[in-house]
């Protein structure tokens, strides 16, 4: 299981520490935690809670990207599943609501996977279709309105707490463990990495590359649907226009910050989730600092550039030389 947390995570951990330190500087109470009504409160908990949707998206996205694909439709899938969950919440029990919403995500994933794996379409174009159409489907489901609900079960999914932690955080953690167990506990991880690294060679070695590709899109759809349900539960309503808007880009960013190459191959689930947390830590920090949120985008861009520079092979070659020199001196 060493592959779950490889040594190459150092850059991401350092980045997170630096951003946390900056957050602490702009907001002295940043690390404060207090227990109230059996639930933890504080900025750190907030980061985890707010980061959940992107973290869930990145769990699916990292597998898709590992096969040299990309899924632009996750934001739209969030809107669809949120719309379904909100529409059913007050009339059906939680199991029905969840299965309908997640089932929709699964169907969306199958559609994307079919276009990419069976029809051989380029992933960016194939998933663009659902990215555009999906939001329309979500609007059809909500009939253009913002659908609100009051079902306590569903509200609990977004606002409840388990052992002091917000439910979304527990769900995300559970999904990370589940995905990790499935991917690394079976041969899936190796076969996905082989498919992304060299699909032709993998197929000739007997790997069912189509099945691999299909399955990662399906999983990506399910993760996106879960994120959509949580986002809807959080605001107790579904807004087909804005739910998950642009979050596909944050998810891709999280994966890239997590060190998985867009050219496929090696991937890390943990680092992808860490990437999502890095993004959210920045967002929260900027909100707390009192700067106008417009700065958010600029700061994000700078941090992303910094992380990617650290990861770039050319720069790390230079860095490796420097540390090598230091070692020989020592």
């Amino acid at each position, binding site marked *: 299981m060493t592959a779950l947390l490889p040594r190459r995570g150092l850059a991401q951990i350092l980045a997170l520490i630096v951003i946390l330190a900056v957050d602490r500087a702009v907001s002295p109470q940043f690390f404060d935690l207090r227990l109230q009504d059996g639930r933890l409160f504080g900025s750190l908990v907030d980061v985890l809670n707010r980061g959940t949707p992107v973290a869930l998206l990145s769990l699916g996205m990292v597998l898709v990207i590992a096969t040299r694909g990309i899924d632009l439709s996750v934001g739209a899938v969030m809107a669809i599943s949120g719309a379904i969950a909100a529409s059913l919440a007050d009339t059906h029990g939680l199991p029905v609501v969840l299965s309908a919403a997640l089932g929709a995500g699964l169907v969306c994933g199958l559609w994307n996977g079919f276009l990419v794996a069976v029809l051989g379409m380029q992933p960016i174009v194939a998933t663009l279709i659902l990215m555009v159409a999906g939001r329309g489907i979500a609007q059809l489901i909500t009939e253009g309105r913002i659908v609100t609900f009051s079902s306590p079960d569903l509200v609990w999914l977004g606002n409840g707490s388990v052992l002091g932690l917000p439910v979304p955080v527990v769900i995300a953690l559970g999904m990370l463990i589940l995905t990790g167990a499935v991917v690394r506990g079976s041969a899936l991880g190796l076969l996905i*990495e082989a498919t992304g*690294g060299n699909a032709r060679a993998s197929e000739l070695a*007997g790997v069912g590359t189509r099945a691999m590709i299909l399955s990662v899109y399906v999983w990506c759809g399910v993760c996106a649907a879960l994120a959509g349900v949580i986002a809807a539960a959080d605001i107790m309503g579904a807004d087909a226009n804005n739910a998950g808007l642009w979050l596909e880009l944050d998810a891709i960013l999280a994966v890239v910050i997590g060190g998985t190459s867009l050219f496929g191959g090696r991937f890390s689930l943990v680092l992808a989730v860490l990437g999502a947390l890095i993004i959210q830590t920045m967002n929260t920090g900027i909100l707390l600092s009192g700067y106008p949120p417009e700065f958010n985008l600029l700061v994000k861009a700078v941090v992303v550039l910094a992380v990617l520079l650290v990861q770039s092979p050319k720069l790390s070659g230079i860095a490796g030389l420097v540390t090598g020199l230091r070692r020989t001196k020592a």
Partner: protein
Amino acid sequence: MENSPDSAPPLLEVRGISKSFGAVRALQEVDFTLGAGEIHALLGENGAGKSTLIKVVTGVFPRDAGVVRIGGEDIAPRSAKAAVAAGIATVYQEVNLLPNLSVAQNLFLDRQPMRLGIVREGEMRRRAKALLADFGLDIDVAAPLGSYSVAVQHVTAIARAVDLSARVLILDEPTASLDRHEVEILFGIMRQLAKRGIGIVFVSHFLDQVYEISDRITVLRNGRLVGERETASLPRLELIRMMLGRELAETTSERATASEHQARDVCASFEGYGKVGYVAPFNLELRHGEVVGLAGLLGSGRTETARLVFGAERADRGQARVEGAPVRLQSPRDGVRHGFGYCPEERKTDGIVAELTVRENIVLALQAKRGLHRPLSRRDQDEIARRYVKMLDIRPADPERPVGLLSGGNQQKVLLARWLATSPRLLVLDEPTRGIDVGAHAEIIRLIRELCDDGLSLLVISSELDEIVTYSDRVVVLRDRAHVEELAGEAIDVGNILAAIAADGAAVAHEAHA
């Protein structure tokens, strides 16, 4: 052929060209001479150095040593553009024009007739029309190039090259994707250009076409010049010997004699197996403990046969059997399931997963065969990797090193290990010794013999005839995408193989295309 008088320098003169890529010497002191109005075929098998020579002459690669002269003047083009300026134009097999632009735009790309900074479309079309008329082509030049056949695209590329005042025209496999009629048209144009005094270098592996069109032939092998001959006075057998053979040492099979292997059990058999437009139907029996060699020129259908046998390509006729039972081979997965393994010729693109480690590459096929639900534990993987690294002497002996960092020979061993780990009954090896150093070369041949002695069935493709003769129990000879001869026992020698390749098999060729 209009021979230039001895006093005048030849149109294109290449002397003592050498070029190395790292430790690999791609060209060693190669000479090449092209006269004005001459059609000169440049021949050689894969890796002979044809492409490298063309790229050095046209400035794509810098040369290590030697001179290139055009009309007696030294030139040293640093880019393809500079080569064009010097009068050398190249048309590659994959036409390097822009299919989304119109024919006229392609012809005048980068040099459109302009007035006041605006392209004069009408003028451009008129000139394009006139230019193509010279080549016997009357088409709508405003239509996108991509809407026309490959043949028209080729002619357009040639027209552009000639119009750029080319004196030397290099055609790299121009006929590979043309049908018979289109080839005739192309040859007509080539003859016409030669009459105008343009020198044409014709690279092809279709020997019939070479004999039909060329005045002289230059043969390269392993980066060296083998010789330059007049086409008319060079027998076909001699040409093939120049391309393939070494000094025709009388190597004979060291393997068991014919009578012995008849007794062995059949591992896999193929009856009337083939695919339209790919390989003509063939019969092939592969027995346990036997090496069958596939010999033939490049493009003769060797790799195609291998891919059909393994299941990488679907046959559309015939019946495959494994241990006597009929099977369907629809995909590599089917092949793997029936205990086949395939080491493809293109190791980098079809074989290794460069980013993954030696260990992961070795266990890949075995893991794929076992399926998702039965993952090999890390301990099993380590144990398998260690065993094969030791057995095949893979260096460096570090299973955790990305395989892309290994040498070609060691990558080949990793691929062999990948298949051996699946305990296969049949291994298909496509050019297993290509591009690897001499030491590893000998080791791989030794391995082939050992594996065979262990009861494995092997189907091996090689351009090195000596090599095939050394380890094969039987040799199947291919020509023009058809199996034309099967040699066994005493009959296996380089001479017989060459004779079978060279035999004028027009009838067979037609059958293959039908």
